[in-house]
């Protein structure tokens, strides 16, 4: 960058351009949201298949115990590598979303594995509502409407789940993961790619 005398207009333009360029460098790409949506979808789809095959009691808990912690480990490594590789700076919004993600994730894991039996039938709708809160807050923080709308729909699906037969809870989780996580995640990914072209 060569030094030259700046006019007031050039100075303002330089400030605007630099701020835009900086923001572009640490935009979310939706990868992790798609991952968790897909994991949730696979786990609950597999439950239906296992029930159909009569293997539900043997494999269900093992499947859940393997996939979700693996997702957690992958998320940790992905975020750490991305920050280190791309020299991503820390921002207030980034810190809030990051902390919220880990706090929500850990709470969901603890609720699911340690207190799942106490939650009993309420577990699925409560998980959907917690996922929804995270998505709404992330959408508002990133100012990305599809995430917020996806979160609101997920929230409604969560409350709606209380009203249906427990046999359909898995189906509700699958629809919730597609509507609230996978579709908004893909849209975020597309928006990120378009801006980086």
């Amino acid at each position: 960058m060569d030094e030259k005398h700046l006019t007031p207009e050039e100075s303002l333009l330089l400030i605007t351009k630099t701020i835009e360029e900086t923001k572009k460098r640490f935009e979310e790409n939706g990868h992790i949201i798609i991952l968790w949506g897909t994991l949730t979808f696979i786990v609950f789809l597999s439950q239906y298949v296992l029930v159909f095959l009569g293997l539900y009691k043997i494999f269900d808990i093992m499947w859940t115990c393997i996939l979700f912690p693996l997702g957690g480990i992958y998320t940790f490594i992905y975020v750490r590598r991305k920050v280190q590789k791309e020299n991503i700076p820390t921002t207030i919004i980034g810190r809030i979303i990051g902390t919220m993600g880990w706090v929500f994730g850990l709470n969901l894991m603890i609720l699911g594995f340690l207190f799942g039996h106490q939650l009993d039938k309420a577990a699925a709708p409560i998980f959907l509502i917690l996922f929804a809160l995270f998505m709404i807050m992330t959408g508002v923080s990133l100012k990305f409407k599809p995430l917020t709308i996806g979160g609101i729909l997920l929230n409604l699906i969560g409350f709606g789940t209380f009203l249906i037969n427990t046999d359909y809870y898995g189906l509700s989780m699958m629809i919730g993961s597609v509507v609230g996580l996978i579709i908004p995640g893909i849209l975020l990914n597309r928006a990120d790619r378009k801006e980086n072209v």
Partner: protein
Amino acid sequence: MFNELDPILHSQLRLSIVSILMTVDEANFTFIQETTKAAAGNVSIQIRKLQDAGYVKVKKTFKNNYPNTTLSITSKGMKAFEDYVNNLKKYINPKE
């Protein structure tokens, strides 16, 4: 009557560095160099000037055995940037 623009900020590279730091909590040297697309030596000189003016805080640590310089804006730097932008607006639109 126009106020004089802050000479520390009224420089292309220093203004870019401060603009970046206004957007983030803190950023490392490599990020600033990549975003401004300026030479490392030039970035170092301008950071030193901003540091001497009390506008930025420089923290030197080690990351994976490599030196890691992290920068953040000070409250004095924030105030100077706000004043600078307000003065710019007056230059562009004196009636405001």
